[in-house]
């Protein structure tokens, strides 16, 4: 239980971060279309990372299939636009319903599996949805994808504030959940599911709650993606590597089960992929480099940049003290 001073400090940090992010489009030099695009992607990935972190970080159910929920959200907006002529923004609220149903389906099948089997189950679910979306051409237009004729705004600023609002809302929802008794139940399930069950926690119920909330936030990010990018196809939004794996990398790099890990991880990953892609010759091999990065992170910073922050500082300031476990 945090003391009053800690509580104040926590929200002061959060308020400062939100304040700084809110003025970015007004800062000369940062308000170019390109830089804002980077920031929009960072915020979108931080939402997906925070969502994954609830299920994988706190509840210990590692999903390799979050593309399933991202894609469901993205396609809900796309299909409403393409077939019914609605604004793709309806993908946000309607997508929440669709993704909830999807997550209950995935949960029914996968949540009875544990550890690596759960991970493999979700991986399979993501791929099943990708192949389904490719072949259900009457609904999804298959691999041709769905393109929005016009996007709502030409400027980046409105999109930036929409995704900032989504990120702040996601952060708040997760903060409340993780600090509540549910948060303790999630951690108990992560640490020892049988012990949690025998202490009277309905582990199936709480795992389902974590999965659904995680999936819905990911789906909202997916629906936003459709509105922002204006084009989706199954290879993009149901991608195993470019969505499911990158989601895990964002959280691993930033710090699993830390409050700021997903945001920090998203910033690092987006910057890194921009830099790597512009490198001559090896730019094409960015997936290889990401794989190497992941291995390095797992070996040297198992708690991520946020979780092992002190360890990193010590490393760069000279190794005067032995490296200990990083605080969360």
């Amino acid at each position, binding site marked *: 239980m945090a003391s009053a001073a800690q509580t104040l400090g926590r929200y002061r940090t959060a308020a400062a971060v939100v304040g700084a992010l809110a003025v970015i489009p007004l800062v000369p030099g940062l308000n170019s279309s390109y830089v804002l695009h980077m920031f929009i992607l960072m915020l979108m990935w931080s939402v997906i990372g925070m969502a994954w972190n609830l299920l994988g970080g706190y509840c210990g159910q590692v999903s390799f299939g979050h593309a399933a929920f991202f894609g469901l959200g993205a396609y809900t907006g796309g299909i409403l636009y393409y077939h019914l002529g609605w604004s793709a923004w309806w993908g946000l609220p309607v997508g929440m319903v669709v993704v909830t149903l999807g997550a209950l389906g995935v949960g029914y099948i996968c949540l009875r599996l544990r550890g690596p089997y759960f991970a493999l189950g979700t991986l399979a679910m993501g791929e099943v949805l990708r192949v389904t979306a490719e072949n259900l051409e009457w609904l999804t237009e298959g691999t041709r994808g769905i393109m929005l004729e016009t996007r709502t705004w030409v400027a980046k600023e409105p999109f930036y504030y929409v995704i900032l609002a989504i990120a702040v809302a996601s952060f708040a929802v997760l903060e409340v959940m993780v600090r509540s008794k549910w948060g*303790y139940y999630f*951690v108990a399930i992560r640490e020892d599911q*049988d012990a949690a*069950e025998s202490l*009277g926690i309905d582990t199936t119920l709480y795992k389902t709650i974590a999965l659904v909330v995680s999936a819905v936030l990911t789906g909202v990010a997916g629906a936003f993606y459709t509105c922002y990018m204006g084009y989706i196809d199954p290879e993009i939004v149901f991608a195993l590597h470019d969505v499911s794996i990158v989601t895990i990398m964002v959280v691993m790099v930033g710090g699993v089960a830390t409050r700021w890990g997903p945001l920090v991880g998203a910033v690092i990953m987006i910057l890194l992929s921009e830099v790597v892609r512009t490198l001559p010759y090896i730019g094409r091999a960015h997936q290889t480099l990401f794989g190497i990065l992941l291995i390095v992170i797992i070996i040297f910073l198992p708690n991520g940049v946020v979780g092992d922050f002190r360890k990193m500082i010590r490393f760069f300031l000279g190794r005067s003290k032995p490296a200990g476990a990083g605080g969360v």
Partner: protein
Amino acid sequence: MLKVNGIDVFYGDVQVLWDVSFHVGEGEVVALIGANGAGKSTTLRTISGLLRPRKGTVEFLGERLDQIPPYRIIELGLAHVPEARRLFPEMTVEENLEMGALKPAAKARRAESLERVYARFPRLKERRRQLAGTLSGGEQQMLAIGRGLMSLPRMILFDEPSLGLAPLLVEEVFNVVNDIRRDGVTVLIVEQNVRQTLAVADRAYVLETGRIVREGTGSELLDDEEVRKAYLGV
């Protein structure tokens, strides 16, 4: 109070328990003893609902435990102190204890129970803010027992509470078992430490390769020639 009627339990296709039956009366301390792999832990896991019998029933106060989900069993007043402690290592001592008092009746009296546990185990009070994973083996066992007591149980299942502990701590564990019995809580204890277990148990059952092969009072079994030869090495 607890009745196990002819259960057959399997791991996949492998049968581990054959027609195991026994009972525990209110206020008794009953022990289940046997060598490694005899099926002791399997029996406890079946009672607490983590495994389901393919045949037979498990009844607690007239309720069929084998038909309700495991998280509801604790609401009936049956707590489980699992093998190897099974604490939540990244939670503090106090948080671990609080996780023991989730059912509404126990939650209402949580502060009081916490004081009782701290009075019985002063070490836990000293270390209340410490992560459970950083405690010594003996302290972890005390914490696991304390967590079990937090649910205000009518009966406690102990799975190998003396496992891996120094002799002095083993003695302390059995003292705690005695205290718990004096408070009117029924105890079913599974142990490999046969001599000390039989000394505190009212009655005991001997499990061998998944079958109950002997039963009797603690002192009867301590005097039993076969038991002495097989488990006490005399």
